[in-house]
């Protein structure tokens, strides 16, 4: 069976009431045979084919299956956010984004692997073991929505929901050659999204074409009474945006985002894409931003501060991990949290606790919030003159496993292109524009608040000019896993951390 894009699947399903069931069945088989080497799913919905059959007449999606990041609550399907501390937690309710997809006729195929509580840019910080890049299994797929991007790139799901705080949709989209959209803050309800940094978290789609992103955004976007930060701003016609002409638009390349520190391969592919955009009749200029360097520091202070507060709820009493109770409340909580959280999560909780503690609040946390204001003002000013701002999505090609996690700063630095839009709450998209040394490269477009339409329009024109939807990954066979990779893989097997997919039906 040919692996369709979401749009193709929906069209097939409209005319053939058995199509979605067959597709769901085929994808589950494909996941069982291919995913052991990728580790993109951590729970599968074995009832997906049956559910697809019952939704055959329900539009607009007609039972077509989609994958969902494991930080997004799914009723009846285990939801762990990639953490040991939530093991065994089966939410009694759906996140609004999931509920809206289901009402639109979608079936949840399974839950995708991720950096624990979205804390990571490589997909390696998961209690269920690292996800691998389908283009080259010795490399990371990017994070934190690692499994969503890897699954879409490998043709294990037509599309997926991810969530983006500092780049968690855009980074893995770029590293896997897929399209990823971070909507404006407030455009999609966060109800049911397990919180990392609430002032920046946004749910967004990952797919192999711009049209697929538009389909999902049209369904999940909009005000939700269950999330008071969801925006009442009117929705745009996202499907209509796909047909818009972009000639005559004025856009700008952010100078500091293509300069030193950006890999030569990435620069080459980026400028080639910029040429393509110019060829569409777009006026491309250059803009300089002063506060980018401080933006990264600001992001890590703010995100960690919010995380330390959000993760205070994990107490081993109400859900998830619950070891034998002994000692008093304090020692029990400290023990559960010590056992349940992974290393990167512990570091960010400690960092967040530090910057919020007496003596450091003003010189670090408040300073970070002020930098956030400056970054936002600067971006808003640039976006008054230009419809979109352009940069590479990631400054590097996908690193090898282990290459970036040994030194925390070297991983944080990878987020330098993606965090400014997060701080400012602006929408941003990563569009796959080519490959260097066989590895995907993405370009990032940042737009005005609540103007996802312009991002989709430019992405659609670029996609068209580059030959249509992204291909399914074909692994490079030239680089067998190193000795280190083999050791790493065996460690994950021997620790018993990788579960077999849990066959949980949805009530």
């Amino acid at each position, binding site marked *: 069976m040919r692996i369709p894009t979401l749009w193709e699947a929906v069209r097939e399903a409209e005319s053939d009431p058995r199509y979605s069931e067959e597709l769901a069945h085929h994808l589950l088989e494909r996941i069982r045979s291919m995913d052991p080497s990728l580790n993109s799913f951590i729970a599968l919905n074995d009832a997906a084919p049956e559910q697809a059959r019952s939704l055959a007449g329900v539009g607009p999606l007609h039972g077509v299956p989609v994958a969902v990041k494991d930080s997004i609550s799914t009723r009846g399907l285990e939801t762990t956010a990639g953490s040991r501390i939530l093991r065994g937690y089966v939410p009694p309710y759906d996140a609004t984004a999931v509920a809206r997809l289901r009402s639109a006729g979608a079936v949840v195929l399974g839950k995708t692997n991720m950096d624990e509580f979205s804390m990571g840019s490589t997909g390696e910080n998961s209690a269920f073991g690292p996800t691998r890049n389908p283009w080259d299994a010795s490399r990371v797929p990017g994070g934190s929505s690692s499994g969503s991007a890897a699954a879409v790139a490998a043709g294990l799901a037509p599309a997926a929901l991810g969530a983006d705080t500092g780049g968690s949709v855009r980074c893995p989209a770029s590293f896997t050659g897929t399209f990823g959209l971070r909507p404006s803050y407030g455009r999609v309800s966060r109800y049911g999204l397990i919180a990392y940094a609430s002032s920046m978290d946004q749910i967004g789609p990952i797919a192999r074409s711009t049209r697929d992103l538009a389909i999902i955004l049209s369904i999940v976007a909009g005000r939700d009474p269950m999330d008071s930060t*969801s925006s009442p701003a009117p929705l745009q016609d996202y499907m209509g945006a796909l047909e818009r002409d972009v000639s005559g638009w004025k856009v700008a390349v952010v100078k500091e985002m293509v300069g030193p520190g950006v890999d030569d391969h990435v620069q080459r592919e980026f400028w080639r894409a910029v040429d393509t955009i110019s060829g569409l009749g777009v006026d491309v200029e250059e803009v300089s931003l002063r506060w980018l360097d401080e933006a990264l520091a600001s992001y890590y202070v703010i995100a960690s501060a919010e995380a330390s507060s959000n993760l205070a709820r994990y107490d081993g009493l109400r859900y998830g991990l619950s070891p034998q*109770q002994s*000692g008093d409340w304090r020692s029990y909580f400290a023990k559960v949290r010590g056992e349940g959280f992974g290393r990167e999560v512990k570091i960010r*909780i400690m960092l967040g606790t530090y910057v919020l503690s007496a003596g450091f609040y003003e010189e670090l946390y408040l300073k970070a*919030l002020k930098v956030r204001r400056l970054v936002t003002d600067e971006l808003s000013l640039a976006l008054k003159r230009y419809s979109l701002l352009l940069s590479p999505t990631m400054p590097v090609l996908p690193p090898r496993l282990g290459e970036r996690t040994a030194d925390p700063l070297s991983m944080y630095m990878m987020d330098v292109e993606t965090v400014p839009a997060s*701080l400012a709450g602006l929408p941003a998209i990563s569009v796959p524009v080519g490959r260097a040394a066989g590895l995907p490269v993405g370009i990032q477009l940042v737009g005005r608040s609540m103007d996802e339409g312009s991002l989709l329009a430019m992405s659609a024109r670029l996609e068209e000019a580059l030959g249509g939807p992204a291909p399914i990954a074909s692994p490079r066979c030239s680089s067998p896993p190193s000795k280190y990779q083999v050791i790493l893989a065996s460690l994950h097997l021997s620790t018993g951390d990788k579960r077999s997919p849990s066959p949980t039906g949805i009530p």
Partner: protein
Amino acid sequence: MSLDLDHLKRLAMLELSADEEAEVRRRLSKILEYLGKLRSLDLSGVEPMYAAGEAEASYRPDVPESRDPDEVLRVVPRRKDRYVRGPKMA
């Protein structure tokens, strides 16, 4: 920057093994050194920005949801009837 890990562990209610503690100290020191670049900035007069969007608070009607309490309580690992069982108070 001074780093009193014991104090932070108490505030964060987080137990760390001896190995972990050394690792966390090493990494945290490095991160804090990097974040130090924020300290030297003179940002007086700049308003801190807590959230993007600046959405005004809005409330939904205070109507109880019809959700089966037993279904919700099923996620609680240790309970007695409809009570959550916790460790002893100190």
